[in-house]
């Protein structure tokens, strides 16, 4: 097995290569505005570091968000194109689940990531493998009470300490963890892997024009 994993749903552009036993190489850069520039070179970098060729890949794991749309789409279209070009399967995983998997705690918690516009993408977990709510997007103050007392992983806790005082790591997902989680799911519960469809959770901003505006005053 040679699994390529990446996630672009947060400011971290993270890429890893996994052989079924170990993470062979990992590369992470935090720069939300350059996802389109950094992802492809990141993939080449992990392949080169491990001395492997694209043609040896047996699958792609990709974080499907939720996350800001532009960066998220870069990851998903890259996964779909690689899957098409190499004839290999693509496995989607909720990005919040990757962050949850990276926490090392035993008690219930929540994950919150930056959704911009003063909102967070979030979900609750009973343990690091088990999500108990659907991912959602909310203003931190509106969910602070509901999540009161829970440790919060992800950048949301760093950005909104008033709403989420109990911040725990990690801040961003890691592609090495994404690869591990994907392999676990492939072995134990393949149906839990998702199609490479973005979790947008928001509709596009678009307004249908009303009646025509007058251009003249007189």
């Amino acid at each position, binding site marked *: 097995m040679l699994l390529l994993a990446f996630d672009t749903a947060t400011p971290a552009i993270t890429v890893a290569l996994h052989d079924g036993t170990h993470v062979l190489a990992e590369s992470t850069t935090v720069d939300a505005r350059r996802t389109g520039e950094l992802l492809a070179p990141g993939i080449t970098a992990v392949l080169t570091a491990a001395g492997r060729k*694209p043609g040896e890949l047996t699958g792609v794991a990709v974080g499907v968000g939720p996350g800001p749309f532009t960066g998220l*789409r870069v990851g*998903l279209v890259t996964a779909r194109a690689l899957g*098409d070009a190499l004839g290999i399967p693509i496995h989607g995983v909720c990005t919040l689940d990757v962050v949850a998997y990276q926490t090392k705690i035993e008690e219930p918690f929540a994950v919150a990531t930056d959704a911009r516009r003063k909102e967070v993408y979030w979900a609750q977990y009973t343990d690091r493998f088990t999500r108990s709510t659907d991912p959602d997007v909310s203003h931190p103050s509106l969910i602070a009470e509901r999540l009161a007392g829970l440790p919060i992983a992800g950048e949301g806790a760093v950005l909104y300490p008033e709403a989420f005082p109990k911040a725990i790591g990690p801040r961003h997902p890691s592609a090495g963890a994404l690869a591990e989680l994907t392999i676990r799911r492939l072995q134990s519960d393949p149906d839990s892997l998702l199609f490479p469809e973005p979790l947008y959770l928001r509709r596009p*901003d678009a307004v249908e024009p009303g009646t025509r505006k007058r251009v*003249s005053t007189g």
Partner: protein
Amino acid sequence: MTALKDSPLVLGFETSCDETGVGIVRGNTLLADAVASSVEEHARFGGVVPEVASRAHLEAMVPTVQRALSDAGVTLADIDAIAVTAGPGLAGALLVGAAAAKAYALALDKPIYGVNHLAAHICVDQLEHGPLPEGCVAMLVSGGHSSLLFVPDVTGDVQPLGQTIDDAAGEAFDKVARVLGLGFPGGPLIDKAAREGDPEAIAFPRGLTGPRDAPLDFSFSGLKTAVARWVERRERAGDKIPLADVAASFQEAVVDVLTRKAILACKESGADHLLIGGGVAANSRLRVLAEERAAKAGIRVRVPRPNLCTDNGAMVAALGSELVRRGRTPSHLDFPSDSSQAVVDVVVR
């Protein structure tokens, strides 16, 4: 290797606006031109909604590549190089095409060229009329652009002569079509309505044609307002709007200015060929008037067929093919998309 360079098989991606275009060319021969358009999803908004376009690009990308390959009767393994629009265009939309193209290039281990959309609009005519004459003038007119360019070398030397200072020509068509209640996109609808009308019925203004105006720049915003005012005045008076006459007179005002300035650009730069591209190049009156005026000035007009004038992947593949043949350096995998890419930057490296 020489044979490959003479007629490389190039896969081109275009996602700068609402068309997901994937084209395949071998040398100057068009093999496939697959386009998936999200235009219907934008119609009710009266214009392209960037986020709607970006979402549609993601969904259409791989199916459009597969359609292009099957139309061309080739496989990905046959491809020699990849080209993709790096800019200008809608930022989020450009990124989807660039990311897809980079992924294919990476997987196939082939060179990639991040190219200028406007240069691609020019180069596409090679697929129809053969190699471009050295030093022609190109006029690109669409919903997104209105430019006059001097083109000594489409792979490396494209010089801006003039452009719109406000609305693009195609934008004016869309806005006037809305004023007249014709629908979106406006270009073909106005063209059709104008056929029954009198182009001299109403004297609409010709923007930037005064003695002190920039001779090769355009302005269509005043014209659009003038049409809206004229229609409102009629409506207030309770008169019926002569749709065909308004459409024909508006269209004549646009086309008159475009062709006048295009011929002037040819004369000033000593070019004996005028190339017209972009969606508005499909306008029937523009084609007729350009031919008429160019003939008088001893200039030859080249206009690709309508489906090569609008945004498509074949134009990007055509430019990619020319870049390979001229031995130009490919882009690095980390090249940026640039929504406001200058026309002088033909390839982003």
